[in-house]
């Protein structure tokens, strides 16, 4: 528990602005009848970069590794924290929307919001799986990190477009197809586990700051 307290203490403040932005944009854009997901994914991309950059600027990893906490515990709890953060974002979006649907059913009409939010949450899990080990490996301000960050975004969004040609961000594509949703969920779960294993290896063998 004390180790988790450390991770929350260190990271929650850094994630709060993006947490609020996620929630705010989700409801405002829905209110305006605009699909919020592409914009929200960019907010999350910015979040992963910004948190890593701040962490580097204030030498947070050096600080954490100087404390009586194992590298494994640190990486594991960081992943748990990210998972809880994403779950909380998803729950608030879904719960909030359902609530608004009751009080303002003319503006918030979407019936299948639960599956939409679930798909969106899966996309954040996928982003986290890519960017957490990336920033454990490279300092965010280095050219290598910037190139890897750019290429990852390119690959990610090209895949989205190819998966749903001519359409909006492919929330519907997954949300309306049970089989594909299950396949995507499993892919995200596997990616998250692989990401954790990679991050653990990177931090465990860290020889360069």
């Amino acid at each position: 528990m004390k180790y988790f307290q450390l991770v929350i203490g260190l990271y929650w403040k850094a994630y709060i602005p993006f947490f609020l932005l996620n929630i705010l944009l989700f409801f405002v854009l829905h209110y305006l009848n605009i699909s919020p997901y592409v914009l929200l994914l960019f907010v999350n991309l910015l979040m992963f970069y910004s948190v890593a950059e701040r962490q580097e600027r204030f030498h947070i990893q050096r600080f954490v590794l100087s404390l009586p906490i194992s590298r494994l515990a640190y990486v594991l709890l960081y992943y748990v924290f990210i998972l809880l953060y994403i779950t909380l974002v998803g729950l608030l979006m879904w719960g909030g929307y359902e609530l608004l649907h009751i009080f303002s059913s003319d503006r918030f009409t979407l019936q299948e919001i639960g599956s939409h939010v679930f798909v969106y949450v899966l996309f954040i899990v996928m982003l986290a799986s890519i960017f957490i080990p990336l920033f454990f490996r490279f300092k965010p301000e280095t050219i290598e990190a910037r190139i890897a960050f750019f290429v990852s975004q390119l690959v990610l969004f090209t895949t989205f477009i190819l998966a749903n040609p001519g359409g909006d961000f492919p929330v519907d594509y997954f949300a309306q197809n049970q089989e594909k949703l299950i396949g995507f969920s499993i892919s995200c779960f596997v990616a998250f586990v692989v990401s954790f294993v990679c991050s653990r290896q990177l931090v465990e063998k860290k020889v360069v700051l």
Partner: protein
Amino acid sequence: MDVIEVRNVSNRLGQFRIEDLNFSIPKGYVTGFIGQNGSGKTTTIQMIMDVIRPKQGEIEVFGSSNTNPEMKQRIGFVYDELYMYDNFTISHMHKFIAPLYESWDDSLFERYRRAFELPMKQKLKTFSKGMKMKTSLLFALAHDPELLIMDEPTAGLDPVFRRELMDLLQELMLDSQRTIFFSTHITNDLDRLADYIVFIDNGRIKLQKSMAEIEEEFHLIKGTKEQLTAIGRDAFLGLRETGQGFTGLFQGDSTPLASGNQEMVVEKPSLEDMMYLMKGKKGAW
């Protein structure tokens, strides 16, 4: 007994190499870790703290591998700057740092906080360099560590605070069980505090001796060019020549040198003299 043992440690960080480090830090003393900027002091300290891992060799702290996080329960660390987000407060830091240490003592924390005149609720970004250093010290000392590792704690501090810090460290050493390992390039800080000196230059340990041994064995010799020719350049560990004469660092009994050369000056070298003269020389003493 040695608190830290560094054995055959090598590492490579880009172009910079740490090569075959071997030294130990005795328990109950202040050991100064000196070397110019970029000589490898910070890298060595980060390796001791297991923040970075060496490619070769091993490091033991309190008799067990430094990769065991439990040994950090007994260490207080102070780095060259406060490694923490600048929008945090001491109160916020306390909430997640205190629970990590089994021997955390809130009354000690409060005592130091008051002594350092640090506000609990003010954001770190409003702190001066001195206040940030005091904050590092506050968290390093509040669990009453047996070993205090400090990396350039006086860099960029004003002389008054540097003096206060040295007084505090002297006070801490009244407890003979405590050990301080303290890196600096401001060697004046160590003159009245250090019992042992480890000198690193370009990633290699050049010297590890007690202050008493240094005082007894090393001499600063100043003389003319003719005297230098008579003695021979190889007799010196380090040498600087000017148009008028030379200044050399000599190890061993200097009496025969001085007796045959009436005008030669033999002095006790300061750590700064030693660092300056031994820099870039091959070999270890």
